[in-house]
């Protein structure tokens, strides 16, 4: 994966760079709008992480310039502005995702890989149209709307089904509570309560009853992950 980070704050930029490099990506950086725009138009990237407020040229201006130049690389906007209007503005100009500062690096990593996967799927629709999701002895049939653990079918409520599906689609990735809330309920704000935890606890109880092994793990300070061990 090759990515471009356009961020004026050196500490944040370096951390993002270091983090992605550790996960095996190639990272280019720019600390202002014009430089970022230049790199984005001359090089090919899988994803661009773009700060909303940049010196010389605003993040949104960079974004609209890129879209006008017919460059459709997925872009995640990082912003200190959390208001819902700002989010809508960012997505309207052509951003693919919007993350408010301060953010968890884990979350940025997962969001980036989701965007990259989505782009791949757009370019090659045959890839990834999986109708059966599995982990350990758990399988989820998306067509038949059935979840089984071993041989036993587990009855799930619609939202529980969606929660599990999202976790399974991104298994072994740490998914934050906000991401789950956005993906399953489709509302954009931080509910700031343990409401997602309660939903996960209910789901976990159904999946792990009768002595089945743990599948959903809590990652403190980050979110949830589905993995075998």
């Amino acid at each position, binding site marked *: 994966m090759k990515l471009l980070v356009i961020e004026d704050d050196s500490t944040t930029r370096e951390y993002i760079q270091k983090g992605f490099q550790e996960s095996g990506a190639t990272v280019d950086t720019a600390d202002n709008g014009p430089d970022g725009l230049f790199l984005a138009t001359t090089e090919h990237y899988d994803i661009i992480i773009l700060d909303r407020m940049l010196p010389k040229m605003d993040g949104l201006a960079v974004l609209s310039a890129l879209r006008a130049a017919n460059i459709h690389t997925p872009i995640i906007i990082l912003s200190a502005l959390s208001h819902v209007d700002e989010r809508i503005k960012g997505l309207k100009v052509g951003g693919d995702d919007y993350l408010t500062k301060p953010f968890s690096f884990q979350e940025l990593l997962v969001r980036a890989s989701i965007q990259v996967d989505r782009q791949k799927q757009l370019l090659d629709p045959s890839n990834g149209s999986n109708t059966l999701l599995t982990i350990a002895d758990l399988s989820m049939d998306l067509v038949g709307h059935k979840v089984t653990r071993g041989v036993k079918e587990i009855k799930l409520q619609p939202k529980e089904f969606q929660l599990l599906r999202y976790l399974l689609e991104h298994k072994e990735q740490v998914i934050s509570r906000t991401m789950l809330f956005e993906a399953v309920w489709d509302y954009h704000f*931080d509910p700031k*309560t343990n409401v997602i935890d309660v939903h996960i606890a209910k789901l976990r109880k159904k999946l792990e009853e009768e002595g089945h092994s743990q599948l959903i793990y809590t990652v403190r300070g980050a979110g949830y992950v589905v993995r075998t061990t």
Partner: protein
Amino acid sequence: MWLERLRRSFRTSIWRFTLTFTCIVLCICIGILTLVYRFTVSEQTDQLTKQVLMTAQSLSDIANTEGIDRALFSKTVERRSDKSASSILVLQTPDNVIGNLDSIPSALPTLPELTHFPIAVVDHLGQASVTLALGGQQPTRFGPLLVGILDDNYLVRQRDFLSASIWALSLTLIITLITGYLFNRKVLLRINQMGHLITEVKNGNLNTRLPLSKHQDEFDTLSQQINLMLDEIDNLIDSVAQVTDGIAHDLRTPLSRMRISIEKNIDTSVVNSEKEDWKLTLLDELDGVIATFNAMLELSRIEKGVQPTSLRQIDLKQLCQDVVELSLPLAEQKEQTLSFVISEHESSEKIVIMGERNLLFRAIFNLVENAIKYTQEQGLIELELNWKEASCEIVVRDNGPGIPEALHDKIFQRLFQVDVSRQNQGFGLGLSIVKAITKIHGTDLCVTSCDPGLEIKIIFNN
């Protein structure tokens, strides 16, 4: 509707002013009419009175002249009464009555006092009619003498004057009232325009301005001043927003760095290490700080209002169902019953309003979550959606401990908590956010105690 509008326009100060003005005009009219009456109708009566008194004086002088006996005086009276068609002279002697009438009517005052009295007259065709005469009696040494004059126009004159006066007064009254009503309406229209603007501004729509007319009148001056004031307020809010954005940017970046550095330093491969645990606690604490900070900024942002472009048609029913679905496990944890009721509406139909979906969801969720949080185990929480023709209500009701009525207004203030001893129950910003969200949607928020428990209502006026 129009009746209520009429009633409202009659309650205005301009209407009171119009009424006072009308009364003054009427009084002036009555004064003028009295003067006119004095100079026309009563002037004529005065003339006749003078004539009668002069005749009486001359006859009395003749009666008092020496050498005049009764026969001579009677003759004089007779001759004079025949000579004039309008004057009436009657002398009543002990033997006979001489003059135009058969007798002197009783209860006639003694001159110089005069009165109108009816007499029967026969015209040249032999038709008898009753007419009025003005006169009085003059005592002479030959007997009482009636001196009078025919005043057959007296009643007609009086009636004509009266009807002319009534017409004039009614016309004045009608014209002043109509003019008053028209002025009133015009002024009221402009005042209502201002009232409407103030409501718009109150609802967060700070871009509204008052229209100016070409006349440059006092209302235009006032409108101009209000517009200038709104410009100033808008500028101030903008600069506050810029400052908050600045603070947000300046503070979030270091917070961001801090979070990233802690996160990066956590070694997930080490389990149950005290050092790692300490870092995780630090991360939790930092997340708490960030959450409060975000909520405060968010609140200021929401209070400034939403862009009209963010408003969409929202199905309130779906929104409420989503809230219930999200909050149900929270209620189940406390073995509470959370129910959703729709009343007075076909349950298959959508209930659509214009609003910002995320914000409205948040407002309703905050209310439901609050109800769950403060209601005892096994309590009842009800979310109700009432659809009426003129309005739509979202009601969140619980049978928890409730809130003393004196504190009902305070619960929407920032950082206010009913029970200060409650720990870890949020930042006291949840209801402030609800208030801000409902305000920018132009809805009313209403809190009532329902013994036991609390009921919070969001009222959308259609």
